[in-house]
């Protein structure tokens, strides 16, 4: 066991730290933050992504041939940690960089790779993901959105949901049913859809936090050239499954863990300063226990990630431990935000706009957002199914 980085890795880290210090706005994370307006926020993140690209820091895990650095897993972990430590914004093109790129690298034609990859890494083209539908959530194979061949086009009709950033996207990866008569996993194709094509309507979907990160996207006779089919006709399910398996691994989770720890550190600082009766909230033995539970929970999240990551480093194939980690952290973080609300005590109901709101209402926002943690990217129920079946070998 060894929790240190090699000199070479430390040099990588220092180079990145230097670049971040030079390129993040002055006072970033202290006095300067992401814009509150959602559109401005998105544009800021897009600009940041392009800046990262220019600095050679976008898509670092991509092969060098496609503009990446071919970064090692350790470098990817360091990248995630340093970005979190610097509270750097996340680039906007998450779907493009992670899901689309890896899918095209594995399953795309040479023409598709040449056409799409450079504009993903440069941040010129942002992507969204058209997988889920109102009646195909956990049961993704139930997609109904149809693509019917018409000459050299598919004509797409249907509805997708949870299409994050659709309003800022130039392209969409779409799962569509191309053979309604086949068994449900066998009639699905994987298409690349230009979001400027006539017939696409985007309706923002407001979350309980009031934010509109997601959308419903409607396709009405949308014509998609046949060359935008990825892989084989009706072979989309297998591609989608490998796409989802590329969801971010333990090296990214390390960054997420740091962000959570920063949130908890802020909560501790707040508890130390908040008056509760005639002492500070941090002096309350019951709150201390609850905060300690969150501390332990979040620190173990880091250790879980490091263990999974260490196995990855040795070349172990990625298995269901992503499900274990997701199930674990989503509940730990929901509990942390519940505790945060208890720490705020009488001030818990007061949100961002109020003069008495604590820390600008960040914990209320986090509390509301946290309700989605156990639902998105595979609900806790789905994760438990996966763990029971794939890790423990229990029958379907």
């Amino acid at each position, binding site marked *: 066991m060894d929790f240190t980085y090699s000199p070479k890795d430390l040099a990588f880290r220092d180079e990145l730290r230097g670049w971040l210090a030079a390129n993040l706005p002055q006072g970033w994370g202290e006095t300067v933050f992401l814009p509150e307006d959602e559109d401005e926020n998105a544009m800021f993140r897009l600009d940041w992504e392009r800046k990262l690209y220019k600095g050679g820091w976008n898509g670092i895990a991509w092969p060098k041939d496609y503009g990446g650095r071919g970064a090692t897993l350790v470098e990817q972990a360091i990248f995630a940690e340093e970005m979190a430590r610097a509270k750097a914004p996340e680039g906007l093109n998450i779907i493009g960089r992670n899901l689309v790129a890896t899918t095209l690298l594995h399953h795309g034609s040479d023409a598709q790779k040449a056409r799409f990859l450079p504009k993903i890494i440069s941040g010129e083209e942002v992507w969204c993901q058209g997988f*889920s539908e*109102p*009646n195909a*959530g*956990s*049961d993704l194979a*139930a997609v109904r959105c149809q693509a019917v061949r018409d000459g050299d086009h598919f004509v797409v009709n249907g509805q997708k*949901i*949870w299409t994050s950033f659709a309003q800022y996207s130039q392209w969409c990866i779409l799962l569509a049913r191309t053979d309604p008569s086949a068994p449900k996993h066998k009639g699905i194709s994987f298409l690349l859809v230009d979001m400027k094509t006539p017939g696409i309507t985007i309706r923002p*979907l*407001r*979350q*309980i936090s*009031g934010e509109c990160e997601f959308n419903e996207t409607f396709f009405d006779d949308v014509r998609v050239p046949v060359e935008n089919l990825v892989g084989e006709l009706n072979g989309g399910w297998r591609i989608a499954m490998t796409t989802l398996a590329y969801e971010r691994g333990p090296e990214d989770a390390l960054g997420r863990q740091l962000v959570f720890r920063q949130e908890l550190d802020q909560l501790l600082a707040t508890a130390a300063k908040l*008056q*509760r*009766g005639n002492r500070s909230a941090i002096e309350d033995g*019951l709150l201390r226990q609850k905060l300690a539970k969150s501390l332990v929970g979040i620190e173990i999240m880091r250790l879980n990630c490091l263990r999974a990551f260490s196995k990855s480093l040795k070349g172990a194939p990625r298995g269901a431990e992503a499900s274990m980690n997701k199930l674990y952290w989503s509940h730990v973080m*929901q509990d942390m935000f*519940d505790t945060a*609300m*208890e720490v*705020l*005590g*009488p*001030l*818990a*109901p*007061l*949100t*961002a*706009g*109020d*003069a*008495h*709101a604590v820390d600008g*209402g960040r914990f*209320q926002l986090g*509390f*509301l957002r946290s*309700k*989605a943690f*156990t*639902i*998105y990217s595979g*609900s*806790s*129920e789905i994760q*438990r199914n996966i763990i029971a079946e794939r890790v423990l070998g229990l029958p379907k």
Partner: protein
Amino acid sequence: MDFDFNQEQYMFQDTVRDLLASALTMEHLRSGTPAELWGQLAETGVFALLTREEDGGLGLGYTDLALIFEEFGRALVPAPIAAAIVAGGAIARFGTPEQRAQLLPGHGEGALRLSSAFAETVATVPAAMTLTARPTDAGWTVTGSKILVPDAAAADKLLVALRFGDDLGLALVEPSRAGVTLREQDTLDLTARYHEVIFDHVTLTAGDIVGGRPDPAAVVACFDAAAAVAALQMTGMAARTLDEAVTYVGQRKQFDRVIGSFQAIKHRCADMAVAVDACRSAAYYAAWALDEAAPDERARAVSMAKSWCGDNARFTCNQAIQLHGGIGFTWELGLHLFLRRIKCEEASFGDADWHRERVIGATLRSMELAG
């Protein structure tokens, strides 16, 4: 021996439920309380119910209101209405004859609006309150503030809990009185307006004090009533979110099955049902205790209910959101209105930890055990 409601009480519940079903839709909740709700509820008698018969009221008790407050929770009736009933109840029980005569008829008709001011930035329970009236030649003068006062701007009188020297007392202050400023607050609860009420050298006279003089027992009784009402409303919210979840999982299909046939989902719903049933037991008993029990037993009953219903309404609502999947965390579905309101009720009138400490303290005292 009968821990059940009588026919009249159930009929009253039906009446209010029917009224709320038509008067307070999800659309209303999103766009603000319909103006006519106050009057419609007044017609059912809810505002006159706690007022003694000799004062023109119905002379009934919180037991008769228990199912009504549960319906309020179920329908998310905005907070100012419960606050008004509790304030009226305190005046009915502890007010001077003049105060009762002056305020309760209008209150009963829904014409005179009351609200109540308890919370402070550092306290939601009487013993920790700091707002203090200092004696002057003319009476008292108050400087400081109360937060989260339900729609103080629409109120004719505010019932304010504060200190008079060492003693706690309840005062009646109109928001328009000199030195009173209202500041609307941004809160989690989207179904009502709340205000901070700021007092800057506001003058009080004996006539403003409920009962004519500070009465700590009245403050604690009023606090207990408010906490019990919160428990009853949270019970209704828990029951409603359970119903929404059961309806949804009974319809929603995934993997070619109604998801309510998946055992893990069924078991979750069963746990929610048990939680809601126990909420009812606790909250109904607290309502009864407000009417019938000695202060110690009342405190114990109320604190049991407030802590249990807070924890379990949170549990039930969280699970309801979870069981709705992606739709559960959309603004449109509206479950978040319950989540928000429950969080506000949990934080109000003593949180669960405080109430549990009160339960164990009272129990140990009654057993004559140290600690």
